[in-house]
Structure formats: structure tokens, C-alpha cells
């Protein structure tokens, strides 16, 4: 039998961390399934909630922003479709982000009792939001059929934007997950960030409205938000050429997400061995 040898020393990162992570993929799967099957336990409507939430949010936004505020959609695109596209990707990002941020503290009973690569917790926490995302996407397809809207070849790029949104949620979520272990302030901060993001990102409106404003003092801040490029891109892939798309802002998003992701993982790896002392 092959002997499995481990050396434990202070400050020593596991040499085979990523291999360990791969070996623990079954645990990853089981923790994901746990979250999914627990999600709608003891609810009368069950998984229907995954449908009800995006649908009602969309209806309210259509009512408030389209009927009352009379915000224009991108030309040639029905407003509800544009909003639902935005809600779908934003909800995916924001729930993943929230769940990643709280994943370590929610699993504190495991952290103090068993060893496994700690990255399993944030990774497994996204299963629930991904399922919700698929439901919401299904709703979008139904709505698109209703409006007899036919997507074009851009749809092929959709997976790339889904992955980008996911990486974005890791890039920011992992950092907060680590900080949350020591400072529970994060639990208060995150709903606030999500709420602000909902308005700061092009969900109820199109980035075209911002682009048309030209150069105001605040527009650079708008474009610096990495989620703007991702949401615009996602909508562009779903709705085709008529939707607003800005390659420059997308590239900026990719760079920001890439750098933040690298730093976040580094930070997480650096701190994960001390989680149990702080939790």
C-alpha cells in the first residue's frame, strides 16, 4: 500500500492543496446537495419560489420603471425582456456573492471539527444560486417565446458571461468570506452592497442611457464598476446586436475580476489555516 505522509508545521500550506481539493470533489458534491435539498424543506410552495422571486421582481420593475418612470429600453427590445435578463444575471451574481461571503461562518461547526480544503465551502455554496439561475433563465426563455423574440449567434457567448459572473462573485466573495470569520460586520455590510449594486448596475435601465449622457463627472465611476461590463455582455449575448454592448467596459471587467480573484484566492489560502482560531 502506498503510504500517505503528511507534515504539519506552522504556516505551511498544503503542498498538494489543489490535488486535495480535486480528491474531495465528492464532499463538494455532497455539501452542494445538502444546501440544495435543505433549501425548500418545509415550504409549501417548494422550488416554485425560485420562479416566483424573479417573476415578481420583474413585474414590479416593469411597473415602476417602464410604466411610471418611462425609462426607455434598448430600441427594438421589449422592456420586460431587458429587465428580466438583467435580473437573472444580477441575482445569480449577488446570491453567489452573498453565499460565498457567509459560507465559512455558516459551516463553522465543520471548520472546528474536521479538516478538508477550506475552499470547498465557498465552492459548494454556489450550487443553490446556480439552480435558481437556471430557473430564472427558463423563465426568460418562456418570456422570449411570448414576445416571439429570436436570439442570434451571440447566444453562443452566453456561457462565457455566466462564468465571468461566477468568477466575479468569487473574486469579491472570497475576500469577504475571510474577513467575515473575524469581523461579523460583513454580515451587515453585504445586503447593503447588494442593494446599492442593484441600482448602480444596469438592470432596470440600459447602459446606453449612461453612454448617451457623454462625459459627466460621475460616468468614469459608472464604467469602473466591473459588474456593468458583465451585465451588459450577458444581455448582449441573450438579446443580440440590438442590446447595448461596450467592449472596453467588458475588458475592464475582465481585468478587475482577474486581479481581484487572484488576490482573493491568495488571501483565502493565506488565512484558511487560522479560521478555526478566529471563528
Amino acid at each position, binding site marked *: 500500500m502506498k503510504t500517505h505522509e503528511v507534515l504539519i508545521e506552522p504556516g505551511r500550506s498544503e503542498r498538494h492543496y489543489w490535488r486535495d481539493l480535486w480528491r474531495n470533489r465528492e464532499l463538494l458534491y455532497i455539501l452542494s446537495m445538502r444546501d440544495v435539498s435543505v433549501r425548500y424543506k418545509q415550504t409549501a410552495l417548494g422550488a416554485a419560489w425560485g420562479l416566483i422571486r424573479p417573476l415578481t421582481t420583474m413585474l414590479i420593475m416593469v411597473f415602476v420603471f417602464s410604466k411610471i418612470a418611462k425609462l426607455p429600453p434598448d430600441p427594438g427590445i421589449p422592456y420586460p425582456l431587458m429587465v428580466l435578463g438583467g435580473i437573472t444575471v444580477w441575482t445569480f451574481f449577488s446570491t453567489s456573492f452573498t453565499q460565498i461571503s457567509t459560507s465559512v461562518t455558516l459551516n463553522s461547526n*465543520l471548520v472546528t471539527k*474536521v479538516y478538508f480544503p477550506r475552499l470547498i465551502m465557498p465552492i459548494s455554496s454556489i450550487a443553490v444560486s446556480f439552480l435558481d439561475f437556471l430557473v430564472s433563465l427558463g423563465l426568460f426563455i418562456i418570456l422570449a417565446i411570448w414576445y416571439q423574440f429570436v436570439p442570434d449567434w451571440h447566444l453562443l457567448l452566453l456561457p462565457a458571461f455566466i462564468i465571468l459572473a461566477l468568477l466575479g462573485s468569487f473574486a469579491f466573495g472570497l475576500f469577504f468570506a475571510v474577513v467575515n470569520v473575524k469581523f461579523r460586520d460583513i454580515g451587515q455590510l453585504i445586503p447593503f452592497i447588494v442593494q446599492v449594486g442593484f441600482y448602480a448596475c444596469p438592470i432596470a435601465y440600459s447602459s446606453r442611457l449612461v453612454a448617451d449622457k457623454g462625459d459627466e463627472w460621475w460616468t468614469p465611476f459608472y464604467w469602473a464598476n466591473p459588474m456593468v461590463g458583465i451585465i451588459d455582455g450577458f444581455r448582449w449575448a441573450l438579446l443580440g446586436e440590438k442590446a447595448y454592448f461596450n467592449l472596453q467596459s467588458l475588458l475592464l471587467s475582465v481585468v478587475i475580476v482577474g486581479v481581484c480573484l487572484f488576490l482573493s484566492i491568495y488571501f483565502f489560502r493565506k488565512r484558511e489555516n487560522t479560521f478555526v482560531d478566529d471563528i
Partner: protein
Amino acid sequence: MSVITVENISKQYIIDHQKGKGSNTLRDVLAENWRQFFGGKKDGNTPTREEFWALRDVSFSIEQGDRVGIVGHNGAGKSTLLKILSKIIEPTSGSVRIRGRVASLLEVGTGFHPELTGRENIFLNGSLLGMSRGEIREQFDAIVAFAGVEKFLDTPVKRYSSGMYVRLGFAISAHLNPEILIVDEVLAVGDAEFQKKSLGKMRDNAANGRTILFVSHNLTAVQALCNKTLYFEKGQLIEQGETNQVIASYLSKVSKTRLLRQWDTPEEAPGNDLVRVKRIELIPDYQDDLTHIDVRTPMKFRFEFWNMMDRANLNLSMHLNSMTGECIFNVGTRSQPYGKGLIAGECTIPGFFLNDGSYTISIMIVKDTVTPLYVMEEGITFDVEDYREGIAWYGKWPGYVRPQFPFEMGMLEPASLE
């Protein structure tokens, strides 16, 4: 071949003693950094910090197939050591080298989710403990049978009784197949019969050449399972070696035993103007070269006190109390008239009477059978250790006392063979 080599392991914790606020919030840290940024030095109100060594310079090695017991008081560093070996916490300094697959059992039913069914939780807990899904599936029926929860497999564990919950948790871990098994105090839970079954299962594991590290407060279980024992105190390894030897020295060190108290002159003796206690003593009648009191040991309680009254009807009653303060029994002398002088008496507590545990003896001197003159609380403190013979069960023996009354059983009417 040594499978675990521990070299100079230490674990330090910094304890913040903060004034007013209990927790460390982001605001405190930001405010502190802000002050340092502008003021250049920390202000005087910073929390006082205290270093605490949960483990200090611990070294030992464990050979393959050893069953090692770890004993010590609460806070001696036993659990910290197990957590370091399980890679859950990182040592502050030192190193550990482990050869072989480790499974740690620090809790029964780790990760059990109350909403999930027994079946789902078996897979969840099993994979947390390092089993693959294939292994779990292979062992599934054995686990369920061991726990005896066949009927409730598809019931959420929140509806389980606490006994079922514990049984299921232990059953999963009992079917782990690691080369090194680390177990922390899990036998403390569950009913007596299940404890016996669990210990039996662990012994089977040990028989298969598995290395076991076992922390327990139950010294009988340690003695039954382990061939070697480590004794920790205040984060340091005090003694290691053969189980019986280490446990004997552990017992001699930890007991707060105080068998004798005496005062030479009435001036310094406790009491009042009427009576003063000169001496109280518990004398164990050790048999078979024993050096500690166990359930077999007969004892004599002796007392002497000064009576300063010319003539009084006196008696003395002795209360034997458990550590939690309940009176196990109360016996008294006959009330008799005494003049001034030193009065002495003796009471015998037979062997095979007290259950294992810690006890105190209080005395009360009474006048005219109704008026207490003086009460001395907890004059004597002693421990009674467990001892069993020919019994394969190691749970806590129930009851306040543990007498051996004549008790016979026999076949009344053999069934006729057909």
C-alpha cells in the same frame, strides 16, 4: 515503525481582555489603525493581552498498532493536540509527521443537518470523515444495522431521539477504515449498552493493527483499550508509558484528596467556646498493594474533639456527601453525657459500598440530640476509583451507592429437550 512523530509542538493563544466590549469588531480595529496612523502610537486604553499556551514543547512518537490513551484534566491540552494532529488547527511552532490515512472523530455526527434524513446524513457525515461514496455504499447496511435505525432511514434526523442521533453518528465513524483513528471523548455519550458496543468495535479495529489515539475521562475505558498512555497537564506532557503505570501516577497527582486534618492546640482548632475539633482522619484499609481508594476499599473515619462544657449530652453525626453536595448517608453516635476533655470516635465504611466518585465528609456535633453546636463542612475530601472484574462494560455505574448484596440466580426449571 513510528507512524506519528511529534516534535516540540506548541500552541499559543492570545487572549484579549477588553474593557467594556466583548467582541472584536471591525470598528475597533479601524479606530485603532486610525489612531496609530495619526498619533503614531497606541493609546493607553488598548486591551490588555495575555498569552496562553494550550500546548508547550510536546514531543512523542507513536508506533504502528499502538493504542494510545490521552489523559489529563480539562484544559490540559488534550483536545488541542488532537486538533493539531487532525490538521484542524495549526501549531504555533514545532512539527508533526504522520504516515498513513487519518480519520478524526472529535464529535459524534459531525455536520449532521437536522433537516436531512438519516440516509442523507450518513453520506454527508461519511464523506466529511473522509470516506468515498463507494465506501459508504459498501458499509451502508452495516452502519444502519449497527445504529439500529432501519425504520427511520428516511426520517429527518431532527425527529430522532437523542439516543438514535448519537447511535447513528457513532455507527458511521465506527465503520471508518483509516490507518490512524483519532477519537475524542465520544464514548461519553450514548447509553451504557451502546458504549459497550462502541468500545468493542474500537477494540476490533485495534486488533487489525490500526493505530488509535483515544482521549477520555473514563480511565476504565482507557485501561481497557489502550496499551500506552500520555498524561498531560497544563499543556505539557508529564508522563508517557505503559497505561497502568501512567494512570496510577495520574491518579496520585490529580486527586484533591485530603484524608487528614489536625490541630495541635485548642487555640488554633476550628470550633467555638463549647467544642473544638482536634483531628479528623479517613484511613483507607488498602488491600493488595493498592495505593488509591477504589470501590473495594474499606475505610475508617476517626475523629477527636475537645469538649469545653462541664457536662453535656453529646453526639457526633457524620455526613458523607457527593461532590455535587448531595448527602449519600448520615450516621451518628449515640448521645451520651460527657465532661470536659478530649473525646474520640470511629466509624467504619465497608468496602463494596460507595460507588466510584468524589466525596466529602462533614461532621456535626450535637447537644441533647437537637441543638447543633458546631458543623465542619467538607473536612475530608477523597476519591473512590472504579474497579470491575469480569465485566466487559465500561459505562458509568449508576446509583449513589454500589453495595454487593447477596444476589443469586439459578435455573428453576430446565426446558425439556425434545
